[in-house]
């Protein structure tokens, strides 16, 4: 990552509340680097996604190289390196959900939102034109008893049917 690239990004710093949370976090571990995942979660919550500026900032805070932060960000599916919609819809498609027709739910969402499914390297593909929704497939969400399930941002929705999806989308759109 060149200096130039970092320069054209808006710089990033924790806001007051997150700074407080970060200060508390860092005290939990004998080495600073260990706070990597919680810190990145915090930063992503504030910035929306992990920009090079965020990586640079996190690297400075944790006293590691930017490359190390990048290394971690690329490993974990929950960190986004591209902008995502206001609502991230994660559709579980592993076996127990597949046995309960998650495909119907997924296809319905695709048609309703008129978008493709995001891939880890191309989130824009699954984001609606108005930037409101990002649709992605995820692996088992550990709720197979209430399959098929989806997660919208932090909330889990159970036993879905196309009708329930319609209701949910209407609620989110308003």
């Amino acid at each position, binding site marked *: 990552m060149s200096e130039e690239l970092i320069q054209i990004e808006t710089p990033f710093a924790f806001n007051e509340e997150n700074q407080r949370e970060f200060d508390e976090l860092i005290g*939990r571990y*004998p*080495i600073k*680097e*260990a*706070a*990597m*995942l*919680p810190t*990145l*979660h915090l930063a992503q919550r504030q910035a929306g996604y992990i920009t090079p500026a965020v990586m640079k900032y996190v690297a400075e805070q*944790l006293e*590691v190289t930017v490359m*190390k932060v990048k*290394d*971690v960000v690329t*490993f*974990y*599916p*929950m*960190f986004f390196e591209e902008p995502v919609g206001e609502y991230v819809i*994660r559709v579980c*498609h*592993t*076996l*127990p959900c*597949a*046995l*309960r027709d998650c495909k119907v739910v997924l296809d319905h969402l695709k048609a309703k939102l008129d978008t493709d499914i995001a891939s880890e390297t191309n989130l824009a593909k699954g984001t609606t034109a108005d930037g409101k929704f990002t649709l992605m497939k*995820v*692996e*088992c*969400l*550990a*709720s*197979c*008893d*209430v*399959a098929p399930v989806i*997660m919208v941002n*932090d*909330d*889990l929705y159970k036993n879905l049917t196309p009708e329930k999806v319609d209701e949910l989308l209407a609620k989110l759109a308003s």
Partner: protein
Amino acid sequence: MIKKIEERRILYEHLDVPDINTFDVFRQYDGYTRFEKAIAEYQPDDIAKMVMDSGLKGRGGAGFSTGLKWSFVPKDIKPCYLCCNADESEPGTFSNRYVLEKNPHLLIEGILICCYAMGIETTYIYIRGEFTLGKKMLDAAIKEAYEKGYLGKDIRGTGLNVDIYSHPGAGAYICGEETGLIESLEGKRGQPRNKPPFPAVEGVFMKPTVVQNVETLCNLPFIVGNGVEWYTQMGPTYADTRSDPPTPDPNTGTKLYCISGDVNEPGVYELDLGLTCTELIEVAGGLRGEEVKAVIPGGSSAPILTHYELDTRLDFTSLTLAKSMLGSGGIIVMNETRNIVDCLLNIMKFYAHESCGQCTPCRWGTPWVRDIVQRIADGNGRKDTITRPKFGVAENGRWGDTGETEDIYEDLDLLESVANNIANVDTMTWNTICVFGIAVSWPAVSYLRKFRPEFEAAIREGKLVTLPVAEATVPPEENYAYQQRFIPKEFADL
């Protein structure tokens, strides 16, 4: 006639009590009294001995004796850490989630007992990134426990110090593997470490570390509270006949069985270890459909069971001897309408996505297996135009040329060979750093060997064909995969 099986709720007993997630309500239901009993009546070593005697086996996947694991931890290296594995991501498993969301104080009490027994002062709960509600409830409970003086410095005036921190993951399955978890906790990519050294000797921050699943830790309050004798009455104790005289092989306690797929009432059922597949399906409201085609007994990594094997008892020993495993206790049931090739494809997509990419056999082999299954499912599976002599049990009763010929399904041979080269299921040897490798080849090879007709049909017909159960399943007498199956004897019967 199947006898009526009652749930025995111990860990889940108060799960549905309103507000059990708060300290005060938890306290009304004996909360923290077992921890108090532990510090008042027992020395740390007594607790460790009780856990050893209880026969408690880890509920996270490996089924390794908890007491034995604790005994490997060197006493003279401090600090020592406890990592609670709340990364629950094995497909088909969802029991830890309910503990975290509804009864987090029970986990804290279990952790306190473990910390007291092992002289541990710091615990990290590695909680799956997607468990936002669970983390919220857990954090609130931890905060409350600090306020009430059950966590922090000098707990209840005993001089005991315990800190608990929750640590969120970020969506990688492999961080459930204990050394992957440790790497991830240290702020790196969750790539498993070579073993030895085992975490018990050198784990997080290069210090001795006990890694324990949520359910395992939740058993501790009850072992301490009700005693070893009470605990060992639940579940079978088998005789390990490898030694002479046979030694007891306990499968004690209850298990939070997670059952999903084609049953009428999927959910978590807490039952004594050792009931059979048929019984469990009955408990879960019966089969949805006409006939059981297959059962995955321990999360998607476990080798599949056919309808011939439904009498297998769902405990650690019986399933290991049936060449499968209890794993995480996630049971997935499939009825006659399911296509096994399609199911395998789904699972292989999961593994191809989740391989951490450190070891070449796993990094390349897993997507390769997925692609072969995809090809077969798409109807492009390869079959040779020539035939070959069929090997099997010949007329003289020995393994040899049977005099018949068989078709050569190139892709099926390839599938088995690639899978077995990630980890060999027959010799149980592997060329990978962690056992993710065997978690890939176990399903791949077992599905293929036990449901071969369905794979062959897909290749022959050029599309997915769902055969009737009887036709789709290879009968036990013809199948190498079943032949080593062995049913254990209970110790008491000897």
